[in-house]
């Protein structure tokens, strides 16, 4: 019995002393939080439309153990902001008392804590109080969160005119595009830790090409470019998660 225990302890030591120890979950449960929108285009509610498209595509892949079939409407940023007010209270206490220890040595200045969800890096922690409550309410081990960080359009144009001897060649290309850029995160609900992050850009482009007198296509901006860009963004978001599915819910640890 003693020998068995010794062998068991040795085996455990070998496992934990390896250079990398991965914590992973089998068939991890997750929910998709409704995306937030950091752009000035608030009135068109791109966040709702994009969240709905993303969850629809996630369900179709059958690769995600989604606990809810709709995006969860829970504004973590506002809750986080309220927690951050604690730092302001500590600053006020410090200023009055002439002592800033409660502020600078308090939890608000712990570098592990993310300043905001929209700037949280891998390894940083978003308030576990908030994330664990959401995870518990929906039976999810992971929260998938996205922020639309950029939306816009642009036009570029090229023109080349080759003249040679008695002949010449005229080349003209115009392209207009509309793009939507999203910052994605996977957050472990119990700890609030960000374990995966990616920025994905979806777009729709229209190109006009002219060679000599012949024109092909059109670069005119149309109203359906927005919905095409949303569709492209949603697909690229899901593709990015599927590509990284083996590490989406995986926390790399390194032992120093």
């Amino acid at each position, binding site marked *: 019995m003693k020998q068995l225990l010794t062998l068991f302890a040795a085996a455990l030591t070998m496992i934990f002393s390896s250079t990398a120890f991965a914590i992973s979950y089998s068939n991890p449960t997750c929910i998709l939080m409704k995306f937030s929108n*950091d752009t000035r285009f608030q009135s068109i509610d791109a966040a709702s439309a994009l969240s709905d498209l993303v969850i629809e595509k996630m369900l179709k892949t059958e690769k995600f153990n989604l606990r809810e079939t709709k995006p969860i409407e829970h504004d973590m940023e506002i809750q986080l902001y309220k927690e951050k007010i604690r730092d302001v209270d500590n600053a006020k206490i410090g200023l009055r008392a002439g002592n800033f*220890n409660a502020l600078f040595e308090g939890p608000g200045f712990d570098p592990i804590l993310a300043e905001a969800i929209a700037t949280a890096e891998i390894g940083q922690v978003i308030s576990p109080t908030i994330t664990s409550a959401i995870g518990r309410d929906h039976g999810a081990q992971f929260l998938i969160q996205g922020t639309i960080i950029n939306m816009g359009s642009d036009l570029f144009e090229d023109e080349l005119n080759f003249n040679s001897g008695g002949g010449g060649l005229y080349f003209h290309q115009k392209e207009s*595009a509309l793009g939507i850029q999203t910052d994605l995160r996977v957050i472990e609900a119990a700890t609030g830790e960000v374990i995966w*992050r990616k920025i994905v850009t979806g777009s729709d482009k229209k190109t006009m090409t002219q060679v000599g007198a012949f024109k092909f296509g059109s670069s005119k901006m149309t109203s359906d470019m927005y919905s095409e860009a949303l569709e492209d963004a949603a697909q690229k978001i899901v593709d990015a998660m599927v590509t990284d599915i083996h590490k989406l819910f995986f926390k790399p640890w390194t*032992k120093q």
Partner: protein
Amino acid sequence: MKKKFLTALLLGSFLFSPTGDAAKIDMYRDAMSNKSFTLKYNIVTPLSRRTNKELHFLKGNMFGTGTFEDLASNNFERRIVSGIIVVGGENKYVEKNFAPYTEIYRFKTASAGMETQQREQKELSLCTLIKDDDVYNFYWNYDSDGQKRYYSKLGMFGEYSSSIKANDTKNDTRSPYDKLLDEYNYGSPDLAQALTAILPPDRVIDTPDTPEYKFIGSGFLPGGLTFEDFAGQKNNTHYAVRYYFDGDRMVKIAAFNYTEDATGIQDYEKTIVEITEFSTTPDQTYLSLPEGLKDKTKRNKKEADSK
């Protein structure tokens, strides 16, 4: 509220020693006042991201895929993660290293909590060298062999140009505000705010964001570090800065400010800067053009002889 206040005061009293002495900061203040120092830093906390920026991802032409103005100016994809400032009299070198937000990792150690580990940035560094009144702007990144590569601009076909001209406004990517505050530009706004408290009063530019700081106190922390605190106020904004020392060596700066008016808290910001080197002598290797960059500035004979 009163209980929390008293608890904080009691806790703080174990760590706070009201010596009224900011002696350690004086060495750094003198170095900045004398324009003689080398400072290398890492930004631990990014500035809060400000939104409402139009997407411009089609800049370029048939031969190139983008300009460095786009890379460096997009604050929402890339941020300043570290930098170098070297000042030697009127000569100055400011380097800002950018990395994508998505590629900064922190790894946990199995034993002792969180250890910050920044991945070597592979994106872009913007450098400004002011030497003998000439201003040079250039960049560096890593080539495919992992070697540092310095260049002044991208050529028409995407090649890296090693010829550089001083005072070349076409390639000067600094904002007008940066140019105006050239002498006072400390690269990252995070760092600029954190250093303002130890600037000598005659070096501080009076702006809507710059308070007058007063020394508050100093003390000891568990682990052997000491600190010195400064606070200030400008209009409705209150500022607090703490400088951390290991012996006499500055190792970290933490700063916080909040704005409150009659309607309540309007805004707040926090900054943590890790100081990897802050010496009182300028590192002369940075105050010349790096190897690999050839100065092609056109000068008349008199100028050339004096340089």
